[in-house]
Each structure stands twice: as structure tokens, then as C-alpha cells.
């Protein structure tokens, strides 16, 4: 039996994108949620190793670096900024792990459309969508239609 294909969503406030989760689930996919950068890295590593398989990955550009529970036990020196967590993750997947777009298409979501993020994502060949859906713009729904056909 073929396993239900999975979609990796990286977002620390999944309540806000409940609608997106709903849509993907309705198309017959299973959503795997990573709420922080650390968890996301683990999932991406597993995908690279072949332990896990994802149809696509959707990254929030600004996601918590790690969960609050873990954060409380860390020393100062481990602190990293959560500003560019999405970029770091995308770079990790494409450059460090070498996961190609063919192997796993990745989309990114952002609330800001600042140039720095746009440039970084364009360089990695990852489309950047607004978290707010809009009919006038290229939005995440098109990406879903393209890569996650209803089953």
C-alpha cells in the first residue's frame, strides 16, 4: 500500500495558517508540522537521508528558532536570531543537504516582502508567497494546485 504523501509545514503559529492546513489535508495529504527551526532541520535531514519523504515543504520565513521549552535551558552563546530562520532553513535544505527542487519543491511564506528575503529566496530558486492570499498576486494556492494535485 502506498503511504499517504506528506507535506512539511514549518510555522510557529500554525493557528494562523489553519486554512492552508485545511486545504492541503482536503487534497489528501498528510501535514507534518515543525514549529521551530530546530525541528525543521531534523525533518529536512531525515528527508535527505531517505528516512522520510515529503511531496513539498512550505516554510515560514520568520519562525521561532526553537521551542520555548528548549530555549529556557540554553546558554546565551547558543542564541541565534529568529529573523532569518526561513532563509537559513532554505539554504540548509538546498545548499547543505543538496535537496533539489525536483526531489522536494519548497515554497516560502512571508508577511514582509523586503528585498533581502526576496533576493535570498530567488537565489535558492524558492518561490516566496505572502501569507495573505490575494487574487491579484501569485499566491500559495497556485503552488498547491501545481505540486499537490488532489488525490
Amino acid at each position, binding site marked *: 500500500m502506498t503511504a499517504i504523501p506528506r507535506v512539511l509545514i514549518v510555522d*510557529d*503559529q*500554525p*493557528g*494562523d*495558517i*489553519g*486554512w*492552508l492546513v*485545511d*486545504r492541503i489535508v482536503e487534497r489528501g495529504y498528510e501535514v507534518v508540522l515543525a514549529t521551530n527551526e530546530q525541528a525543521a532541520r531534523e525533518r529536512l535531514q531525515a528527508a535527505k537521508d531517505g528516512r522520510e519523504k515529503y511531496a513539498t515543504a512550505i516554510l515560514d520565513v*520568520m*519562525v*521561532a*528558532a*526553537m*521551542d*520555548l*521549552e528548549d*530555549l*529556557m535551558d540554553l546558554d*546565551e552563546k547558543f*542564541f*541565534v*536570531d*529568529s*529573523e532569518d*530562520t526561513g532563509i537559513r532553513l532554505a539554504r540548509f535544505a538546498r545548499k547543505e543537504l543538496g535537496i533539489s527542487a525536483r526531489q522536494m519543491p519548497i515554497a516560502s511564506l512571508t*508577511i*514582509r516582502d523586503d528585498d533581502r528575503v526576496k533576493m535570498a529566496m530567488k537565489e535558492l530558486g524558492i518561490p516566496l508567497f*505572502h*501569507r*495573505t*492570499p490575494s487574487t491579484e498576486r501569485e499566491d500559495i494556492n497556485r503552488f498547491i494546485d501545481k505540486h499537490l494535485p488532489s488525490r
Partner: protein
Amino acid sequence: MSFFTTILERPTDRDFWERLAPAIKNQLGYRVVSLYPFPAGSVSPEFKPLVQQARRERSSKIRESAQRLGRGALLHAALWDGNDVSLGLSLRGRLSPEVSEQLLELGQLLGLRRQLGAQQVAARLESRIGQSLSGQERRTLRADLRVITRVLIEEAPALHGALLVAFDDEEYPLAVAASGLAVEGDSSLRQLWQFGERLATESGWTPVPVSDWMRFTGKATARTLRIEGGYGGLLILDVEAGSPDGYLAQEAVEQCLSYLAATIGVSIQLEAAAWLQKLHDLAKTELEHKPLRLDHLVHRLNELFSSGATTLFLRVQSELRLAATTDPHLEACEEVVYQPGEGLTGHLFNSGQSLRLFDTEDPDEVRRKTGLERRGPAHPEGPFVGGVTARFLAISIHSGERVVGVLRMCREKGQPKFNLQDEQALRFFGDLLGTALAFALESLIYDCIMGSTSVALAVSCREPTADGGFLPRTFLTNAGAQELLGGSAEELDGLDAREFYAPGAYRRLEDRLEKAFRQAASRRESVEVKPVLSRIRRRDGTFRMVRISHRIVVDRRVHPPSFYTIGLARDTTESLIHAAQHERLMAMLNEMGIAYFRCNSAGYTLESSPAEGRITGFSEEDLAGIKRDALYVNPAERKRLMAEARSNSPRLIESRQQLRRKDKDEIWIAGALRQIKDAAGKESFEGLYRDVTDRLKLQTFLNASTDRLLPEKELNQKLRENAEFHLDYLSSVGHQLLTPLSSLLGNLENWKNLLPQESTILRRMPYIVGQARVCARMVKNLSFMDKILRGESFQREWISMAQLAIETTLDFQHLLDAGKLRLDIDKPSLERLLVVRVHREMLRQVVVNLVDNAIKYSRPRSKITIRAFERRDGHVFDIKNRGLPIPHEIREKIFERGFRSRKAKMIPTGTGLGLWLVRRIVEAHDASIRCRVLAEQGGEWNHFHILFPHSHHRFRRRSFR
């Protein structure tokens, strides 16, 4: 030998000579043929050669004459007594060695006897003269001389008359007295004077043989006396010449001469002293009179000296001008001026000596005493002869070494000459007068000098010129003027003062000066010309701006009055530059809104710039009337500042102060203050400041400390940070708004295409509502933030915090669910303790933000508790959660705007605005908030405590009743 002893026993016995002939016969056994005591004039012809020989050889001569007519031999003897031939003898008998020896011895004895006799008489004379003089009450020279002559004729034998004259140094009689000798009027005196002249020119003061001036009295002898102090005396005696007593008297008087000279000397001194006393008294009354009454003075002198005319000239610059005179002719003259060396007066001005003349018209006398070739009277004062005739006495008046005037007096011909005593007395008076005059003149000018603190001072005297104009000739410059004009005192002396001005500069002053001169001429006191700006030409040709004032001083002691101009100048070149700089600087400060002030230590404003008026609202007039303490919100601050400025003097101290404007508004100023001292050491303070109220408000707005004024750089940094923060904040708010909005939209989009099952709607609905509320909450945050920042007032109402907390919880249900968190609200404690009078929506925002915060930073599955508790100082709203422990050092910082801890930054949802707004709202309600971390129930809990102080509570109770 018994005879010889008796010779010496009574040396002045008048019958001695009768007893001598029998005594010689007894002693020698020779009959005396003839006996001539003191053979002066008439002796027998046969005796004459012998007497002459004895006198020539100064020894006794004895000769035996040829025997004739059988009468036996005759012995002739001229006996020398050691001083003169005192006895001529003719004895009948032959010469033998014994006789010869005894005669020689007799001659010696006679000499001894004469000396003894003369000494006895002289002693008696001296004692009587002494007694008589000391018994007199008022001694004058003339009276003393009379006493002496009387005693002489009374006491000395064979002395029938005596005349005594005291002469001054020019052999001019000071006084004459005679007893038993007639001296008649002027002719006698004139003859005495001529005699004195001869003595002075021919034989001096040595005794003159009687025969040489027999023509004068016929039978008189005379002696001259040398008296101390340049005086002389002449004693003329009418004595029985050739008689033994006459000889004795002469002898006695001879011995008395030095005593007489000393006695007359004392008399002269006493008389001179009395004379000086009179002048001293005159000086005392006249010279101490202020101002000097010179007219009065010359009249008094004229009277005292029995003078025909007395005139006083004073020095003005290099000439003498008439000051006062008793001579009506001179007084009527328009101008009486003597140049140095001009006439006798001018001669005295030059020589600085005194001069006494018997006859001014005697060219010889004038030449002898002055070296001048005087051809008759030549009075500079005019063609008239006036009182200046014949007898002349003049002295130069000194002040130090400088001749300041000439005092002269004269008598007409036929009047007595001025004598040495007169001269000495007048010189004495002249010295006193010189001192008084010098003091008067110097004080006149010196007062003006001393009265001025000006840098430069030059005095010029207005001298008339030949063309009817005048020349202000400089004669006195102080160091300041020498510096200003660039020349030494010698170089400036005598220059035309008008040349000190730049071309045209004097012309502008001229009218004012002329007016002042006219005023000075008509008034008694000096006239001042008010300071004006003018330009001075220095000796090197450069110019200096000066502030110059003039004083016109009139010396009215001379006629016509002489005018002095005293120029007082201050170099203002530099001060003008400084003043201009100062003015520009003040204008700049004014433009920059920086106030300048200067005040005294009592706090009264001495100077205030317009900027100060703008800042404080007090005008310069207002400030002049109030103490500056009134400007301070805390008046004690000013005293403290002054003390600090004093201890740091002369450095500036910086300070920031709260002032109260005239309209009672309180403002903040920042500036610097320092103590200054003027030349006299008087203290004042000056300072600069600017209004920094707005700046401090800005700093407050920027969350910067208001303890100090931030430097521009720091402030700019803060402003930039603030602007960046606002941009960040806006985008962050946008982000946060967009997230729930897009969630709402996403759901609605989904449902637009395909209406979901009812179960899905029910599952999603709380999220959707929650997201919408979050949006509303954030928009409210923005609006409250605006309200708080603007400091707007707001309405309050009584609110139960319990109710507010419960309402708020509902909004967060979905977030609580997502984090699997539990929120406990201790309703009873909140209801019991926290019913507060607040703005409902603002307080709601406080609770919302605190709960939002707690949810954001709480561990999953942990508990958040809201409760109230009572404290000594008030009631506390407490919200606690278990989350990121907040380190001690940032527990205050988390309330600052834009602050997020490094750990919180790992969670990308906060804006750093929530807690800041919480604190602002809480403080606007007179409550306070703080963050605490407390260990309880096995872990660390973050607490946020809002303390509503008792004032809230009491107020509530009261109003509820």
C-alpha cells in the same frame, strides 16, 4: 719799694698822678722837673723826639741832656708800659745805672697798673650793661644801644659821650643811639654811612687811628665791631684825649668790644625774631585763609614793612604775571607780565635769589649786585614810573626748587633803605607763601588728575597768540597719555594740543570747548565737557579711537586769568572692537535662543538679553525688580549654584534647572554659570542658558534618561533608533495584523468555494473570532498608545478588575488552547480588592497585553494565574506565568519601548511595545507596575505586579458610601 707796691694797689685812683711826682723824688732822690702822663698830643718840643723814638722802638727811652746854665744835668725818660708810652718824665740829676733800671721798672709797673685799671673798668661796664639790658621789658635794638651808650659814659672815666650804630651787612645802619653826644638827623647818619663805606672799601674792620677821622667829631675816638651774622657796629667815643683817665677809658672800652659786639648781636637776633614773629603771625592769618586773599596779603605786608608799594607776581608757565599789588598804577594796568630776566623782577625770577637795593637808579649798585646793565627804570608794566623807585627789596618765592613767584616792595627816595633783617624776614615769609601757593596751585590741578581714573591725561595751557588767537600748549602728560599719543613727556611737552587729534576731529570738538571756555570765564568753578568719541593721531601717524572728556580749569590768581584744559581720554579702539564683537555675539546668542544674564550676588539682575525675556516671559524691567530666586521652581537652587560657581571660580559650572515662567508654566533650562569679579573685586555672576523643556520632552518620548541633556550625537542616534523602531513597529504591527487577517481570509476563501461541514465550522469558529479580536486589540493598542503619548486626559469609571480579566480571557481562548495553557483567575480576591476607578478600555488593554505576553512566553501546558492581594501600601493586581525567566538586570528594561530580550527574540512574535504601553497606562492611572521573578511550586515564576496605592482604595470607599 713801698711806692711800687702802692702803684698797683688802687689802679684807678684819680689822684695817682699828683702823688706820683713826690713818690719818685722820695724813691729816686731826683726832683721831677716835668711829668706828662700819656703824652698823646701836646708834649714839650724837647720831649717829642724821645717819645716818638720810644713808640718806634716799643721800649722805654732815657736820655741825659746837656748841662746848661749851671743848673746841673737833666734826665729825660719816655716810659713804655708794654702798650704805649704812658709817662714822660724830666728829672734833675745825672744818669746812673740804678736810676735807669728803676725808671724802666716804673714803666713796666705803670703798664701793669693801666691794664689792671682798664680791666676793672671793663668788668664794671660789662656787668652794668648786662644788668641794665636784662632789666628791660621790651627790648628793641635801638633801646639796647641807648642803654649801652648810657652805661659807657656813666661808668668809664673821662668819657663824655658815646655813639653806637648797628649796621647791616651793607654797612647800612639798623639802629643808632647816643648818650652825651649829639647826633643830628639824616646828615649824621649819612655821614656814618659814608664812614662805613670807607671802612668797608679801604680798611675793613680794623681800628682806624683817631686822627684819620678827626674831621668828623674833632675829638673822638672810634672802634668798629664785628657782629655775628654779617652785621657790624660802630662805636664813637668822646673821650678826654691825652688824659690818663681818657686813656684808661679807651683801654677799658677796647677790652669790652667783643662783649659789646656779642650783646648787640643778641639784640639784633631778638629784634629779628620779633620781626619774624610778626610775619609769622601775618602768615598764619593770611596763608591759612582759604582761598588765599592775595590782595589783602600784600596790603598787610606793605603796612608791616612801611613800604611804599608791595607787589606779588606769580608764575604762569614760563612767565610772571601780576597777582596782587598795593600799587594803584599797576592795578590799573591791563596786563603786567615779566619774562625771565626782564628787569629786576625778571632777574629775580631767573636767579631765584633775593635782592636789596639802596637805589635802583644807581647803575653801579645794580651792576654790583645783579650784574645787570640797568639804564634807568624800564617797567614792562608800562611807561609810568609807579612806586618802584629807589629802595628796593624783592624775593623770589620757591616751591621746592621751582620759582613760583616774586614778591617785591619798594620805598621812595629819602625813605630808609631795606636792611638785612627786612630781607631775611621777607625771605622767611616768602618760603611760607611759596608753600601755600604751590599747594594751592598743585591742588587745583592735582585734584583734577586724581579725580580721574582715565588712562590718559594731558594738561594744556591756553596761551594767547600775537594774532589774537590762542595756543593750547601742552605741559603735563601722564603715562597714559604718553602711551596713547606715542611720545615721551619731553616730546609732548610744549606741543599744540590740537595736533593730538586726527584731521577734522578737533573741529568737531571745537564748539563744545569754546562754549566751555566761555562758561569757565564767567563761573568760579571748573567746567567739564562731557565725554565724546574722537580720534587721536599718534606720533607715529596711526589713529586711535578714544572716548575723551575735557575739563577747563581757570587759575584766577593771576590777571588775566589763565585757562587750563585737561583732556581725559580712554583708548576705545579695542573696546569698540570688543563691544562690536560682544554685540554680534549677543545677537547670535539671541538668534539661537540662548539667554544671557548677569546678576549680583543678592540675585538682582544687572543685565538680561532679549532671549531671556522670551524664555522666562519676564522682561528686562521685570527682572530688574525681582530677585532671580523667584525664577526658580526651587529658589534654594540659586544659592547652591552660586556656592558651586564660587568654589569653581572662574570656571563655568554646568547645570540644568527647572524655572517658573511669568505665566507660571514650569520649564527646564540648561546652561552654564560662573562667578566674575570686577576690578574692585566686587562679585557678580553671569550665565548662559537655553530652554530645554521640549528637548527633555523629546528625550522622555525617546525613552532616554532625563537626568542629563543628551549630546546631539546621542540624541540623533536615539531619534534614528526611534524612527527605525516606528518603521519596524509598523511593519511588525502589519505583520501581526496580517497574520490573523490572512487566517480569517484563508478560512473564508476556503469556505467560499466549498461550504465546510458544520463540525469544521464549529472547530474553526473560535479561531476566526479570536483572530478578529486580536486584530481589534492591536488597533486599540495603537490608538491608546497615541492617546498616552499625547498626554490627553481620559474619563474614568469604576471597574472591577475581576470582570475585566474574565472578559479578556475569552479573547485568548484559542491561543490558550493552542499552547495547551490554563488561565486561572482568582475572582474573589480580585473582586474584594480591586474595584478601581480607571479608564475601562485602557485597563482592558493592560490586562490583554499582560495575558498576551504571558501566553507568548509560557511553557506549553503551564498555568497562568491572575489574582489580587493586599500590601501595606496598596492592593496588587498580580499575573504570573512560567516561561522564560526574566533576568534581574532586564526586569526594568522590558518596560522600555522596543525592548525585547535576546531570548524573546528567538520567538518572532513580539513587538516590544506591549509592556511599554502597559506601564504608561498604569502610570497614567497613578499606579505602578513592576516585574518580579519568584521561586515557588518547584520553579521560577514571572510575576507582573500592578500596585494600586491606597489612595485609589480610600477614594473608592469614600465615594461608595
